[in-house]
């Protein structure tokens, strides 16, 4: 992208932990209800990072009551209070879309030690 677009986007970038596909993360999402604000946690596996300056996003997948749920978060959205990386695992590709077809034991992944 051009240097000028970078300049515009720079002010919007937020500090986020270094995460990658295969990481299990806890995303703290701010939710507004009327004039009250609370934080909801969405915990799941990152199945894809989508790069691109302030437009970057990431997809988190979890299995909730037997039902697969995926949520795409804008990486630098002000509604994301924080992201915790709970666990990292060894994966061999950047986008883990194959997890959608797997369930139970088959969808497990080997943990790696974080540096």
């Amino acid at each position, binding site marked *: *992208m*051009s240097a*000028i*677009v970078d*300049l*515009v*986007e720079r002010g*919007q970038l937020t500090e986020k932990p270094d995460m990658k596909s295969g990481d299990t993360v806890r995303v703290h999402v*701010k939710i*507004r209800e009327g004039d009250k604000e609370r934080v909801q946690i969405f915990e799941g596996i990152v199945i894809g990072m989508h790069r691109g*300056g*302030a*437009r970057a996003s990431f997809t988190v997948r979890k299995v909730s009551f037997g039902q697969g749920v995926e949520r795409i978060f*804008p990486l*630098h*959205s*002000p*509604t994301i209070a924080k992201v915790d990386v709970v666990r990292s695992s060894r994966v061999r590709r950047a986008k883990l879309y194959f997890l959608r077809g797997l369930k139970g034991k088959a969808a497990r992944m080997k943990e790696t030690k974080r540096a």
Partner: protein
Amino acid sequence: MVTGLIGRKVGMTQLFTADGTVFPATVLKAGPCVVAQVKTVDGDGYEAVQLGLVEAKPTKENKASTGHFKKAGVPPTRVRREVRVRAGGDSPKAGDQVNVSLFADGERVDVIGTSRGKGFQGVVKRHHFAGGRMSHGSMFHRAPGSIGASSFPSRVVKGMRMGGHMGDTRITTRNLKVLRVDAENNLLLVEGSVPGGPNSIVVIRKAIAAKPIRVAQVETKKKGKK
């Protein structure tokens, strides 16, 4: 008061608001411009100014336009466009500087540019014809179909929509909201898209038919029984 500015399209990005709403934004590098000529009702029949876009690289001008810029007392500029002058404010003079501080956040603007050229295109892309089925034995795919009757009128009526050159025309996108004005870097961020590709020249003017700016309605609880 000068009502417009010349700029170049930079590209698109997105802007977040505090509540997480995302606005699609086009970044425009607008101005600074100089007034190269003032047109008046007496001399020209209408009120306008000719603006020149000041760029880093100076231009080589022929003798005729050198004289034109010399008259205004401004350095030669490659890109010149005319914008209307609105009553109010101080009247512009040749040699004046105009920049993005002309616009304010939340204001509505029109952006005029040249759309991307698409070359020779068929009726489906160019005029949104539905076309026919691709399969199931259909022999009618993307053809235009009938273009008129036979012996009467024995010709094709004027303006019949057919294939041909598409794009590369002057397009005005109206009533775009100004999301941010950055006077320091001569940048203007407008909501939505504008015609043309990156680095194409656009004219940004105050909207001539401005829509009222929508204010979010605050929901008030209704009294009475549920």
